[in-house]
């Protein structure tokens, strides 16, 4: 493969990483039956706090921790409002989307465009030498490696462990989970906060690595919505979610590449619409049942294997409230 192409794929993986982490976080939250709609604002606020904390302390790690706390706190507000006070989760999430973005602008106003700590690429010794895949996947930042761990970790947790069964059950049928000994609401709190903390981590991945620094308008604005769409496209399955995130980053890279190609004459402005058109198309793909239909075409043994992977129904109790006795 020519080196430019490897570079480009490497950048796609790097650029997709915050999307991956955020949508994995949201997948966890939604698997537990809670919608955290605030992603777009959460990413912005946690990116700001992550950068400022890293800047003030001089340590990227402290920045990451601060960002995760912010993400977790936002999720906690959603959990209290949605679980304890039984208000519409979508409404709270939406208000928080706007509020946290404004809060970031307001509180971060004295920290814009200053150089601060960054997380740089650190190739993994032997793996990075694998032809093609090595330089693409293993010449990356620690956050990217962490995202790999999250992907496989979540898959293992969901489909191979007892607590994973409970996590899926509280999102699918909380009554059952309750009957089998789960403290549904407490678990929902827990996973909502964990999911939110991961969204916070994704915010830090922007401001400390992928789009280093803090500025207004925040450069990650809009990505939260895309991450939410990716979760749907990904059918709440970690592998497919990741596929969605990479696909998305790839197609976004394409719109830059198109401008570089003088043969294709298309208005620069219109090119910027591509991600949004893509977002609708991917959702259409899922909602039209095209993916489900694929399932019926497959031979039977494969069907069994792919059923989990290709599902497109949200967790049955998503966004609902559970009244624990």
């Amino acid at each position, binding site marked *: 493969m020519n080196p430019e192409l490897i570079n480009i794929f490497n950048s796609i993986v790097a650029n997709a990483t915050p999307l991956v982490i955020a949508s994995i976080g949201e997948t966890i939250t939604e698997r537990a039956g809670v919608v955290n709609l605030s992603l777009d604002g959460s990413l912005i606020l946690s990116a700001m706090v992550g950068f400022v904390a890293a800047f003030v302390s001089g340590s990227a790690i402290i920045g990451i921790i601060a960002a995760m706390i912010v993400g977790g706190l936002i999720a906690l507000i959603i959990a209290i409002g949605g679980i304890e006070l039984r208000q519409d989760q979508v409404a709270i999430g939406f208000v928080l989307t706007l509020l946290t973005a404004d809060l970031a602008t307001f509180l971060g106003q004295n920290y814009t465009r200053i150089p601060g700590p960054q997380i740089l690429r650190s190739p993994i010794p032997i793996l990075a030498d694998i032809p093609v895949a090595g330089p693409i996947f293993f010449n990356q930042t620690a956050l990217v490696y962490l995202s790999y761990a999250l992907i496989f970790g979540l898959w293992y947790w969901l489909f191979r462990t007892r607590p994973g069964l409970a996590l899926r059950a509280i999102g699918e049928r909380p009554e059952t989970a309750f009957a089998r000994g789960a403290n549904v609401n407490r678990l929902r709190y827990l996973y909502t906060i964990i999911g939110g903390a991961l969204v916070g981590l994704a915010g830090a991945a922007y401001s400390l690595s992928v789009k280093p620094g803090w500025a207004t308008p925040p450069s990650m604005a809009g990505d939260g919505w895309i991450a939410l769409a990716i979760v749907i496209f990904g059918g709440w399955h970690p592998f497919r979610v990741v596929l969605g995130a990479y696909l998305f980053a790839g197609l976004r890279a394409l*719109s*830059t590449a198109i401008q570089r190609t003088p043969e294709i004459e298309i208005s620069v402005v219109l090119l910027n619409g591509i991600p949004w058109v893509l977002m609708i198309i991917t959702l259409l793909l899922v909602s039209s049942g095209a993916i489900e239909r694929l399932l019926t075409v497959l031979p039977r043994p494969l069907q069994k294997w792919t059923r989990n992977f290709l599902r497109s129904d949200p967790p049955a109790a998503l966004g609902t409230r559970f009244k624990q006795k």
Partner: protein
Amino acid sequence: QDEEFVFGMILVGPRDDNGWSQAHFEGGQYVEETVPGAKMVYFEKLNPADAPETTLLDVVTEMVDQGATVIFTTSDEFEEDTAGAAAAFPDVTFINVSGDDAYTGEAAPNLSNVMGEMEWAKMIAGCAAALATETGSISYLGPLINFETRRLVASAYLGARYCYENYAGKDPAELTFTVTWIGFWFNIPGVTLDPTEVTNDFFDNGADVVISGIDTTEGIVVAGQRAAEGQSVWAVPYDFAGACEQAPEICLGVPYFHWGPVYQNIVSEIQAGTWEQTWDWIGPDWMDINNPDTSAVGFIEGTGLSEEDKTSLDAFIAEMTAYATDEANADTFFLWEGPLSYQDGTEIAAEGEKLPAVAPLGEAPSVWYLEQLLDGITGASS
């Protein structure tokens, strides 16, 4: 005992963007320091992304209310609204940077335009890039496409081509000069391309120098990141004297505006009652382009420049100074002489012919009203 003199400063970006807006803000501060009694009121981030609900007229109204008698509207984006505000407040003087209303005669009598001749500094930027590049591939991070941005890209290109051939001693045909436009002066998520991603894309595709044409610092930030990861890449930021601080070790230098003396001049004239409507395009002080009290435009060499390249660059600047201080070259720019043609092949200056700095649009080609990019540049002209 000094009578207070309030002037307004309206910025399109944040006052600390390390770029265009910060340069204006510091120009205002310069006036506060040098003109007794002068006091600045400012409004930053007046743009559709940061303050979607606020209009320029709202801001002007507030400023007049605070006692401002002269207001600087510091973006091409404010051209129409400044004209509207000038009509609404005939007693207040408006200075729009840049704009051409005062040139075309559309402006109300209380409105002037002023701009610095950044073209010179952009040529130096192009030269520095050409001296540093190892891959022979230079990328230009363009904002939106208009007359100003096209002529700045072209200036950088001309500087690069000239130095690549005459100072680096390489074949200019092998120089790649690519521009990618993000769609606005700075990143507006969801509306523009992301300059961070675009800069990464430059480096991924083999460029090793990025010249920034946008108001903000993404270009040098990404280059700094890449360099920290071990790549040999460089950047030329834009607009603001301190922009190199984002990543000094890979900064080749920065072409910048120094608005302080320009603004001080205007304010003094208004105070003295000698102000008259003008359309000003102000060049550098050729005695010392980096003199903070006299030069409107300058180029600060960066620490990323090697000793050898520094020598070459100084020689280039000397050559340019010699050209510019020669009376015979009045109202023309260095390197802007034929043969020059547009991207589509239309010739705009024949061999030996110099392109005029400005001529009414549609009557003759000129640097100010450059309608396309020059032949040899890769990237969209419109």
